[in-house]
């Protein structure tokens, strides 16, 4: 039980790596930086694997396994321990983060080989791993918040890694500021949690929540308020409507960063929080509905933007936003396990997609515009095959990882406890669009004629340290779905069974559900489906595959069979195309609605008004008074004898008059 007793080791490894590389790495050769950077994360992964082995030996009543190290904050009734915990959800997150993180570290040794600031990159990357592990292993909201903000910081540092490029520096700031909007709600949510439950420790919160009734749909009770506030943080961090705008810009960072932080791990933190706080969410149906609606809308909305983007990383960025929407949709309809499952498979295939895209960019010597690629299939075969697998996985081809996880979510949206047909249709439409834009990406990049200058660009396959992680991830993108061996192909859902304790321990029990049902009236949207729903589902199970096929055929038609027809369609729907190409002008709308007014107020009111007039006025005013007074008094000491004589005479006269006056008073 080495690691269960010393959970801190998992956090200490990447932190030590970050500190070592950050402080000393500047003078070290790259091989040393490599061994420290990659080594610490690989050790962390091995430690996580060992932890899982030890975890499997624990008895059910020992889970969640909480380890408290010291009292961190003690202020009256408000006490926070620095405590870590391990339960099934933590294990899933831990393995996913450590595994994908390790592969991406290895990949980075190839991708960043010719970049300056090599030690800095690995230091930041290790720092990110430290905070991400803190986030998933925390046993209370405050420690989790440390990880939450820490990954935000690492994200900022890594997006702006090439900080001399203005667009990269701006993108880093944008990411930080936009997520801050959500974090405001998150912070208030944590405070509200303490206010309601008197504790921030998961175990205590959930224990108290378990005895609370389900809140009615129509009112905003304490649980609904807490859940909505926490979800606001999740919206910012996980780039959902309307705070998704920072994620596409975050592609300014190096591609491994996009893969690790902005696809596989950090952006899923919001989903993790919703899943972690499931005892609260399950008792706040209105919050659940909001989560599901935001998720469903985002899944569809950002997929439409992905249709027309030409930058290979931008397509993947909008795809990530869309897939995160699916995860929230899954959580929102009550299928937390499905959401987390999609989180895991998404980490595999989207991480792979980004890494493969990085490999393409590497091969093209930095080119990211898909219109200047084409026909790369034969030239970079490893990249092509791995990307093909990832594309098939995300598009939902039966048997691959994405198929299982997405189907589970869509199934839950159609027949789960909080199902609604609209949500299902949104998800389904998004699935079709996903298939289209992913195959469009694949066809534009790897098929057709080459649209680049073959003399100028020397296309070459990436080195081994880049292709091997691709192949390993491809393996998981291919087979990752079988962790769940889902019941829709007749297996037992091991994944859901594994996570069952986390999502059922504090779930509303029968009486509460019945109470809720009586509150809601005779027939909620989900009730009365029963076995009928099972039949219905069987009829629907094929739909995701069918729309994926439609998406594929459409992409094939427009980009392989009849490339000129794509132009025709574009010309026909010019206005719509422009709207999509400009991302619904959301950035421009935000700039007009928020950024520019804020800038105006800051410049004219706060800067020129408050700062320059009020504060500078006071600060400069005090010395000005002293100086004016001094220069007036200085006139007395002129060095002019006659003026001195005048003062002496005046003084003598004044003194005499005073004396006479006093004498006169004394006499009377």
């Amino acid at each position, binding site marked *: 039980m080495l690691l269960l007793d010393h959970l801190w080791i998992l956090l200490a490894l990447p932190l030590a790596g970050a500190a070592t590389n950050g402080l000393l790495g500047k003078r070290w050769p790259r091989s040393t930086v490599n061994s420290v950077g990659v080594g610490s994360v690989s050790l962390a992964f091995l430690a996580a694997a060992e932890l899982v082995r030890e975890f499997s030996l624990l008895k059910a009543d020992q889970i969640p396994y909480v380890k408290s190290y010291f009292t961190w904050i003690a202020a009256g009734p408000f006490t926070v321990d620095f405590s870590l915990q391990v339960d099934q959800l933590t294990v899933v997150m831990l393995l996913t983060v450590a595994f994908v993180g390790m592969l991406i570290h290895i990949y980075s040794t190839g991708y960043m080989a010719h970049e300056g600031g090599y030690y800095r990159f690995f230091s930041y990357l290790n720092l990110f791993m430290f905070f991400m592990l803190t986030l998933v292993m925390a046993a209370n909201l405050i420690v989790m918040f440390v990880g939450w903000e820490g990954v935000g910081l690492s994200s900022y540092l890594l997006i702006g890694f090439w900080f001399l490029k203005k667009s990269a520096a701006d993108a880093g700031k944008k990411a930080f500021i936009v997520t801050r909007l959500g974090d405001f709600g998150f912070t208030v949510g944590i405070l509200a949690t303490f206010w309601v439950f008197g504790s921030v420790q998961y175990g205590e919160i959930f224990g108290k929540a378990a005895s609370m009734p389900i809140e009615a749909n129509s009112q905003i009770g304490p649980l609904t308020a807490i859940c909505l506030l926490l979800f606001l943080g999740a919206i910012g961090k996980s780039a959902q409507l309307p705070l998704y705008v920072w994620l596409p810009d975050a592609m300014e960072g190096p591609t491994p960063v996009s893969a690790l932080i902005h696809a596989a791990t950090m952006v899923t933190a919001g989903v993790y929080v919703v899943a972690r706080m499931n005892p609260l969410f399950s008792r706040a149906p209105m919050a659940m509905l909001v989560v599901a609606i935001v998720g469903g809308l985002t899944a569809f909305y950002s997929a439409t933007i992905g249709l027309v983007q030409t930058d290979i990383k931008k397509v993947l960025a909008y795809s990530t936003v869309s897939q995160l929407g699916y995860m929230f949709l899954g959580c929102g309809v009550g299928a937390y396990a499905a959401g987390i499952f999609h989180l895991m498979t998404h980490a595999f295939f989207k991480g792979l997609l980004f890494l493969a895209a990085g490999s393409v960019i590497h091969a093209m010597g930095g080119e990211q515009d898909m219109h200047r690629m084409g026909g790369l299939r034969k030239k970079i075969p490893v990249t092509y095959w791995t990307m093909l697998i990832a594309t098939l996985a995300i598009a939902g081809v039966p048997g691959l990882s994405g198929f299982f996880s997405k189907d589970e979510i869509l199934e839950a949206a159609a027949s789960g406890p909080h199902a609604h047909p609209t949500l299902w249709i949104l998800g389904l439409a998004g699935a079709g669009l996903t298939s289209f834009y992913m195959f469009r990406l694949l066809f534009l990049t790897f098929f057709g004629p080459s649209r680049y200058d073959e003399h100028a660009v020397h296309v070459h396959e990436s080195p081994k340290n880049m292709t091997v992680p691709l192949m390993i991830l491809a393996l998981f993108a291919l087979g990752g779905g079988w962790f769940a061996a889902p019941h829709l192909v007749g297996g037992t859902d091991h994944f859901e069974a594994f996570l069952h304790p986390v999502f059922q321990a504090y779930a509303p029990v029968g009486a509460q559900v019945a109470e809720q049902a009586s509150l809601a009236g005779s027939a909620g949207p989900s009730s009365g489906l029963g076995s009928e729903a099972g039949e219905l589902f069987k009829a629907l199970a094929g739909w995701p595959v069918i729309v994926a096929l439609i998406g594929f055929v459409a992409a094939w038609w427009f980009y392989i069979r009849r490339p000129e027809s794509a132009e025709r369609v574009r010309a026909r729907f010019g206005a719509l195309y422009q709207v999509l190409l400009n991302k619904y002008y959301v950035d421009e709308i935000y700039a007009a609605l928020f950024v520019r007014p804020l800038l105006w107020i800051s410049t004219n009111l706060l800067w020129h008004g408050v700062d320059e007039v009020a504060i500078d006025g006071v600060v400069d005013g005090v010395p000005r008074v002293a100086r004016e007074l001094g220069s007036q008094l200085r006139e007395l000491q002129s060095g*002019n004898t006659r003026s001195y004589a005048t003062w002496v005479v005046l003084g003598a006269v004044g003194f005499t008059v005073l004396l006479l006056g006093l004498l006169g008073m004394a006499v009377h």
Partner: protein
Amino acid sequence: MSVVPISYYLVLSAILFGLGAVAVVFKRNIITIFMAIELMLNAVNLAFVAFARAHGQIDGLVFVFFVIVVAAAEAAVGLAIVITITHNRQTLNVERVNLLKL
């Protein structure tokens, strides 16, 4: 023979002193200022003598002798300073003598 009342002496003394003070303040020539100071000293002497006479005491007379002696010493030192200043600065105007160091 009627005695001149003491107030006459005192008024004269005050007028002389005032003239001296005004001259010290408004005149620019060092020699003139010097003479004005002598005038003030002697105005005070007059007041002393008048009081001594009025009260029939000798104290005021003693003071007057001291003042005369000190005024003589002051005149010696003062005129020496005036000569040095004139020598160094080629002027007798006090307005030009506003610096300790040339």
